[in-house]
Every structure is written in structure tokens, then in C-alpha cells.
């Protein structure tokens, strides 16, 4: 399994170095660091094998997290583990270096909290084999910063803890209590769209995520119902409202009972305390594409280019899209651009090599346009402009491109309390591309 883990900064210096197996030397790591800093290629490929030693790494901003191994391990597992490790640090960090770093792993923070990091590293891997990687659980028995000091004294409580850790419901501790019981569901969809230059849809896909935030007492049993076609078909005769949507694939948080879902497609679970990504899903059928884009490039005279852009929103007019951003690529030798639009603001941004059009609020069922006149410089005319696609970013609250809806959300607990529930929907632009 994993022989060592190290954190490396951009200069190739080792910030944290933890060995799990004896088959690797610090020397090999420093040599690799030097190599990685030297060439771009080494940095790019996530895995490199040098003389039977494999170096597997991910980069989070300026920090490289590197795992080494000498055995033929499952690569995806190591990578996923590294990513989860990052999540753990983010989670801890929000509690420890509170004011300092927000969702950001940087050199200073690592140096500052290295004792904690070593403690975590000690717990998440044993002999290079991944163990407990759930941030909530880890916090329960890691001592740094006075977190949960009192449990160290109470042996009974500790027993409970170790049983939770190793038990079947390891994600939720026993004996939670909240004054107000609350449950939040966020359905966030990002639309990946690829439209060819001839205006045909090459690929349309929604990758969605259902995020759960729970503040619930005890051991509640929850159930979610969605307008999933396969499920609805089973339950009742189809009327107009009950025709569901077909979901290509769903991936579930460990708390959801997979065998139960496999049997009758009901989603039941005991929620983890706090925040988690409950479900991620993918849908590729019948996607409501939120914006229709028409774009024309035409050369007026030799060094002048005209771009006409039309955007139409195709969702109900009581819904608003927010923070809409359109990136219209322009040639490298653009000198300036004169833009004219009725809605929002558009201007040429050199570093992006595009005209960026920002619209704060975009009503549904509405059409607007942009006209740009691009002045081109005479430089290197021979070089062909490899036209990058036009990109769009946006957020549309209360709208799902896939049409997914939560039909019900039940919480059952033996105490029989009342739960406040919130459900929100949001659609975002993912890889929303329009080829030119």
C-alpha cells in the first residue's frame, strides 16, 4: 500500500513527511521533488513510475500532496484517498485556524498546524492502508486544540466512540441533541453543454448534487422521494404530473442503504451530523437547456471584425438567472473592442482574450443581444487563430435543468419531534460551450 505521504510546496521543499512503510527513503522523495519542479510534464501527469517506485500526486493550489508506493496498488483508491485527506484538512481548518484561512490550504497554515496534521496522518493510514477518513469522526478523538478533551477521561464514552467508529453507522455518533431540529436540502445542478458550430447539440448532460445539512436529535430515519421515472412507474398509474424523469446514474453517500435502493429504488438513510454530499447524479435525457445562443462573426474590412450575439433564455418568466457571464473569444491581435448592448455590461479583457459580457439579472423567456466591433492589429497575420469555444456561466435559482424535483422528505425518529425542512434548487453553468 502507500509507503509515505508528503506535502510539498512550489519550491519543492518538503513541509510534512510521514513514512508508513520502510521501503522508501527521504532521498528518493527529494529527488522526485527536484524533477517535478524542473519539468512541466512531471507535474502534469498524476502518476509517475521511476524504477519500481510510483509517485502519485494531486495539487491543491500551491501545495502538492504526494503519496509513494512500491506495490501494485489501486491508483484510483490512492487518489481518492488524497482528495478525502484534503477535505479533512479543510474541515479541521475551519475549526482551528478559524479567522486565518478559509477553505484554503497554504504553506503557512500547514506549518502552523503541523502537530495536528501529523496526528491526522497517524490516524487515517495504518501501514499505508486507509482507515478512518471521516472528518466528523476524526475530530472526535483527535486531541489538538482542546477538541473533545473531556472524552479522554470518560472511559464509557470512549467505548461508545470506538464502537461507533467500527460499527455499521460509523458516520453518526450516538446521543446528539438539538433544540430546534432542522434539515436543509440543496439541489445543485451544473449543465454541461457542447454545441457544434452548426448549432447541433453534441452533448448535453446534467451533473447534479444533492447536499444535505442536518441538525437533528437522536438517530433519525430519513427518506427522500424524487420524481424518478423508474420509481414513479412502480408506484401509481401515470398521470400527467407523475411522469418522472429518467436518471442515468446516481452515486450515494455511504449512509444511504444501497441494497434497499437496489431492491426498490427507495432512498433511505440515517443522516450524518452536519454537512455532506448525499447524492450525486447524472442525467443526459430531456435536458432543458436554459439559454439559446446565436453568434455570428463577420469581417467587415481587413482589420475589423464584427460579432453579433443573441441570447434567449428558455425558462419560465417568473424565474431569474443571476450572474450571467458570456465569454466571447476574440483573436490574439485584438486592439480594442466597441460593444453595444441593452442589458448588462460588456468589455474586452486582454488577459482572457475575450469580450466578457456580464448580466446581473436575466429574466426568463427573454431575448437580448450584443454587438461588438473588434479592431485588429496587423501583427502576425500568418498565424491561424484557433478559435476557442464561447463559454457561458450562470446561476438560476429555483430551476433544475433536468426537471428533477424532490417529492417528499420524511424524517422519523422515536422521539417524534417536528422537523423544519428547507429545500432549495439551483442550476449552474458547468462546461457550457458553444463552438465557433
Amino acid at each position, binding site marked *: *500500500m502507500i509507503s509515505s505521504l508528503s506535502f510539498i510546496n512550489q519550491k519543492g521543499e*518538503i513541509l*510534512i513527511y510521514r*513514512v508508513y512503510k520502510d521501503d522508501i527513503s527521504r532521498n528518493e522523495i527529494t529527488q522526485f521533488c527536484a524533477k517535478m519542479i524542473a519539468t512541466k510534464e512531471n507535474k502534469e501527469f*498524476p502518476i509517475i513510475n521511476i524504477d*519500481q517506485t510510483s509517485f502519485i500526486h*494531486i495539487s491543491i493550489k500551491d501545495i502538492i500532496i504526494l503519496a509513494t508506493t512500491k*506495490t*501494485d496498488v*489501486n*491508483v*484510483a*483508491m490512492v*487518489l*481518492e*484517498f488524497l*482528495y478525502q485527506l484534503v477535505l479533512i484538512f479543510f474541515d479541521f481548518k475551519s475549526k482551528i485556524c478559524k479567522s486565518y484561512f478559509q477553505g484554503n490550504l497554504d504553506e503557512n497554515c500547514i*506549518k502552523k498546524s*503541523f*502537530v495536528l496534521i*501529523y*496526528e491526522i496522518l*497517524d490516524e487515517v493510514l*495504518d*501501514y499505508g*492502508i486507509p*482507515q*478512518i*477518513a471521516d472528518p466528523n469522526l476524526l475530530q472526535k478523538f483527535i*486531541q489538538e486544540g482542546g477538541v473533545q478533551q473531556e472524552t479522554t477521561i470518560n*472511559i464509557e464514552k*470512549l*467505548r461508545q466512540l*470506538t464502537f461507533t*467508529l*467500527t*460499527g*455499521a453507522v460509523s458516520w453518526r455518533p450516538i446521543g446528539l441533541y438539538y433544540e430546534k431540529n432542522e434539515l436543509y436540502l440543496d439541489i445543485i445542478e451544473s449543465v*454541461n453543454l*457542447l454545441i457544434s*458550430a452548426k448549432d447541433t447539440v*453534441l452533448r448535453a*448532460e446534467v*451533473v447534479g448534487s444533492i447536499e444535505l445539512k442536518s441538525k437533528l436529535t437522536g438517530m433519525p430515519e430519513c427518506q427522500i422521494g424524487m420524481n424518478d421515472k423508474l420509481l414513479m412507474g412502480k408506484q401509481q398509474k401515470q398521470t400527467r404530473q407523475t411522469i418522472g424523469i429518467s436518471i*442515468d*446514474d*446516481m*452515486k450515494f453517500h*455511504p449512509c444511504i442503504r*444501497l*441494497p434497499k*435502493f*437496489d431492491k426498490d429504488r427507495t432512498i433511505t438513510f440515517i443522516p450524518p451530523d452536519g454537512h455532506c454530499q448525499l*447524492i*450525486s447524479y*447524472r442525467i443526459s435525457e430531456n435536458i432543458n437547456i436554459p439559454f439559446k445562443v446565436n453568434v455570428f462573426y463577420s469581417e467587415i474590412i481587413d482589420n475589423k471584425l464584427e460579432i453579433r450575439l443573441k441570447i434567449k433564455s428558455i425558462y419560465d418568466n417568473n424565474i431569474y438567472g443571476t450572474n450571467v457571464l458570456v465569454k466571447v473569444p476574440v483573436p490574439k491581435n485584438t486592439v480594442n473592442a466597441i460593444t453595444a448592448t441593452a442589458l448588462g455590461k460588456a468589455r474586452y479583457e486582454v488577459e482572457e482574450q475575450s469580450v466578457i459580457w456580464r448580466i446581473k439579472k436575466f429574466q426568463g423567456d427573454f431575448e437580448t443581444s450584443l454587438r461588438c466591433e473588434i479592431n485588429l492589429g496587423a501583427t502576425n497575420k500568418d*498565424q*491561424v487563430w484557433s478559435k476557442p469555444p464561447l463559454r457561458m456561466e450562470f446561476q438560476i435559482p429555483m430551476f433544475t435543468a433536468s426537471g428533477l424535483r424532490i417529492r417528499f422528505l420524511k424524517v422519523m425518529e422515536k422521539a417524534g419531534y417536528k422537523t423544519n425542512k428547507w429545500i432549495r434548487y439551483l442550476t449552474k453553468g458547468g*462546461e457550457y460551450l458553444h*463552438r465557433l
Partner: protein
Amino acid sequence: MAYFGNNQQRGELQELFTDLNDLNFDKKKEAIKKVIAYMTVGKDVSQLFQSVIKCLEFQDIEMKKLIYLYIVNYSRQKPDDAIMVIQNFRKDVRKSENPLVRALAIRTFGCLRVPKLNEYLIEPLKDCIQDDDPYVRKTAVLCVPKVFEVSPELCPALLELLQKLLEKESNALVLANLIQSMREIEVVNGKQLILMNPKIIQKLLLAIDECMEWGQIFILDYLATYDPVESKQAEIIIERTLPRLSHINPTVTFCAVKLILKYLDHLDNGDLVKNLCKKISPSLISLLSWNQPEIQYTILRNISLILQKFPILFENEVKVFFCSFNEPYYIKYEKLDIMVRICDSKNFNQVLNELMIYINEADPHFVRKTIKSIGKIGIMYDKALSEAVSILVEFAKNVQQANESVQELFIQMQILYRKNRNLYKTNDSLKILFNILEYANEPEAKSACTWIVGEFAEFIPKSVDKMKEYIDNFLIEDRLVQLQLLTSGVKLYIKYPSLCSALIQQLINSAKDSFNPDVRDRTYIYWRLLSTDPEIVKNLVCSVPTNSSQFQKDIRLWETKDLIIALENMGSISNLFHKLPNQLYKNIKIRNNHQQEAKIYKADEKQDIPQKEQEIKKEDQNQQIQQQPKQDFDLLNFDEPVSKSNNNKIDVYDLI
């Protein structure tokens, strides 16, 4: 608090020494933290060993952890001092009521890796394996391979304990760790340790539902090495594994896919197999659009393997592999590779249309790969040929400088012309290519150009002048180009004997004294043949190869017998590099594979599946027979540009 501070004075070790021996607890703790910080940046602080372990007498857990970390790091340098710690460990394991402390002690104890200390470890370890607390047990179980690595002679009793535990353990997490630990020992030991029986399988299947994600991976991965005894058993295991396809951890999903794919071979029921394939496919595709590129990459690398045996999984799914503009290039390369593999007689048009767009991208290496892929598709499907050529010609029109992609263009055009000579007429391709001939600078591309000039001399207005230009530089050319120049020069001479008599003389003069035996030999062969009977040379050199089926359609990544082994190792590092484990790791021995044929799962019409299989088998055999005499005429080589020896072969083919 800045432990990594820059003001490192001389007496720092001395200072630490004083602090460690200070009576004040807080000062001690700070000093220990500093020691660990120095250790991290790679400074040797082993001299403080004794002072550090003296601090163990405090019951502060945080400090204990740090000291243990220190001990693990330096125990091998200071084995004699490390003995002093033993008592502490034993006390913790035996006396502490706190399960976390017990586990911590046994875990660290295992990491010492000093042979002579291990005998003190055996007894406490035995206790821990039988501890009531599952957390201690799961830690103890992992301790065994640590000991085994250093002193295997001490371990027989421990191994027996593990085997007993496997029979009776009920906690899912401990079970998962147990399996993984025994497998680690199996790797070192080379002997089978886990004895499978239906009861244990039943237990493992139950444990999958209960243990955390990593445990699920261990169990699934282990079950994937098992060969089910009968179809019914395979069916049950698959059924229990299916829910894992919806797990949020991509590796769990992937391991489940691996297991199911392996067990498919053991199923009797054809309809069931088809249904299963339908279930696996969307799961795999989700992994391909995973938001972490690194994971996407590992999955993509494995897809080409899965694809060879299970083309059915990606039927009609070629769109999934379309590259998106902002993806890292290492992912784009993989996708391109897979697109060619997935391409068939039905969807080649779609693929070509997509490739046409990539040809305009900025990265020359990516464009080069794209051109190569277009060429490959043209070769594979007769119907795609003209489309492929017109895309390439379109590209050639815009060429303005000599870059990497242009080189590939010449190489691919040459291959396409070889397949169908009449293509030179399509879209004026020959004329357009001739205009940019000067941009060829790689040996292979140059050799392709000389071939084109020789082959189509009668359609190129100034072919003789062009050839003269090449021959003037004969001596500075690469061997590859020289060989091709000889053949092409002779070709030209045959076509225009009077015009080229001086030319051929110059060519032979420059070539006959070459240091390269190949070049020399070929010169003499031509020379003698020309002087005895030019007619033979004409038949040799200018004959139009009628048999275009010489161009193989084989783009398989693996030999059949390797495919089985590769599938067993799906997801592993060796597999990621498209190698067998024993090719990457010298110490690994692989199971001998007796299976000579792999069942291929194709999506096809309902009727006569068995017949098709037979055909495939026959085809395989035929190919093997064919391969022997002519070796690899590997035009579809997927790796770096076709190697020199291969090109030599092409030239020979030209000759004969």
C-alpha cells in the same frame, strides 16, 4: 509558534536538550514539538533520543503521539535505546483502560521494525488481536504484516490467530482490515493464507454492507481474485455487489465493476449478462465525468483494457469521450486514443467530424495525435478513407510553418496513399501537399515526402528537380530517408530514363560508399539489377500493390492471454501503464494463465452469438498464423511514431 523559524542558532540542540529536561511540563511539550519540526525538515535530532523518551512518563495523549512519531523515525538508528521504551508500550497495552491508548501503543510498537525488539511484541500483540474492543482489534490485525516483514520466523502463531479470527470475527471493519492484512502477508510470503469457503464468502458479502468505504474496497478487490465454483455462486456474489455501483467513492464503484466483469465469464445465463452490462455502463460513464481529473485519468487508462473484452459497454457512447476545450492534455490524449478504439463502421463519421475540430487546437502535440488518429481511422474503414483524406487536405491548405503536426500529416498521407493510390486525385491533395513539401524536417516525414515524389512523379510537374534537390543532400540525411531516396530515385529513373540518367549516377555514387550496411546493400542490389535487367526493377519498384488488405485492422492493446491477467489487475499501477504486473515489478510473479481465449462481449444482433465467437476465435488464429511470416506490419501502432525497424519493413515490402 513558528517552529520552522529561520533563526537556527548553533546551540539549538543544546537548548532543546535543556528544555526537554526542564521540570516544567509546558516547556517540555513545546520542546518536543520543536524536535518534531526539525525532524520534518530533515535535520538529525536523533541525539536527543534518551531525553525525548523520558517524557513518556506523562499521560498527555497529544505528547505521547508526538513522542511515538519520534521513536518510529529513529528506532532503527538507536535500537539499544529503543529497548528502554518497550516497557512503556507493554504497560500501555496491558494496563490502559483507554482503547485509543492501547491501539496507539500497539500500532507504534509494530512500526519500530527492529528485529530484536519484535520478540517482546508477540505476546502483547496476541492479546490485542483478542481484545474486546473492535478498534484495538482492527489496529492489531494490521500490526501482523509489519512484524512479518521484519521477522517472519516469529509469526506462525500470529498467522494462526488471524486465520481463527477470520472464522469468528463479526465486526465488518475488523474483517476488512484482516483481509487486507492477510493479503499483504501473502504478497511477502508467496503462500496462500486466506482459505476461502462458502461461509467466509457469505460473511464478507455481509461485511460489504456494513463497513466503511475503504473496507469495501479491500473486500471487493479480494473477491475479484476469487474464481467462483459455479454459475449460481457467481450470480449471488454479483447480486450482492450490484448496489456498490451507486457508491459515491469512485474506487468502490470501480472495484465493483471489476468484480462483476470478472464474474461475467462464469455466468451461464446470457440474458442476465446483457442486463448486467446495461447496469454497469452508466456507472462507468459517470466515473468518466468525475470532477477530479486525476481520477478520470486512471479510469480512462483502464477503459481501453475493458473495451477490448467488453465493447458492448460503450456501444453508442462515443460522445462520452469527446474532449472538452479546457481539459488537461493528459486526459485529451487518452480520450483521443479511446475514440479510435471505439470507432466502428457505424460511427466513424461522427468521430471524424469531432476530430476535424481538434485539428485546429493550439497544442501541436495534440494536433499531431489527432492527425494520426484520422489516418488510422482512414486505414481501418474503407468507407472513411475519402473523408479522412479530405480533412487532412483541408488542414494542409492552412499549413504555414514547419511544426510537429505537419510532419505527421506527411506520414499519414503517405500511408493513406499506399492504401489507395487513386487518392492523389481527391481534392487536389497531391498538389496541395507538394506545395508544402519543404516543411518536412523529421526523418520519417521526409522519407514519406520522397516516397510521394517518386510514386507520383508523373503527376508532379517538377518531380525530377525536386528529387535532384533531395539527392544533393543525400549524405546529410537520416538512414531512413536515404533508404527511401534510393527506392524513389530508382522509381523516377524507370519512369524517365533519359531525364534521370545523371541523377541516378549521382545517387549511386553517393550511396555506394555509405557506412550504413543497409544503405550500401540496397544500392548494390539496385545497381546490379539495373545493369542486368531494368524490366525486373520496374516490376519490383513500380508495381501497384493490389492487396490493400495487408493493412491490418488490429488495434488490440493486449494479447489474448495477457488480457485475462490484465483484467485481474484492473485499476492497479501496472495496468495504468498498460503493462503486466511482472513487467513493472521484478519481484512479482503472476499466476500462469492457461486460458488461451478470451470471451469477447460484443453488442450484436440477437442471433447466433456462439457462431460469432467462433468467428472471432478463427480470426484470432488466422491472425496469429499471418503474423508469423510477416511479423508486425504495424501501421496502427499506438505509441510513439513508428519505430525505425518497422519502417525498414515497409521498405522491404516496397522492394519485394
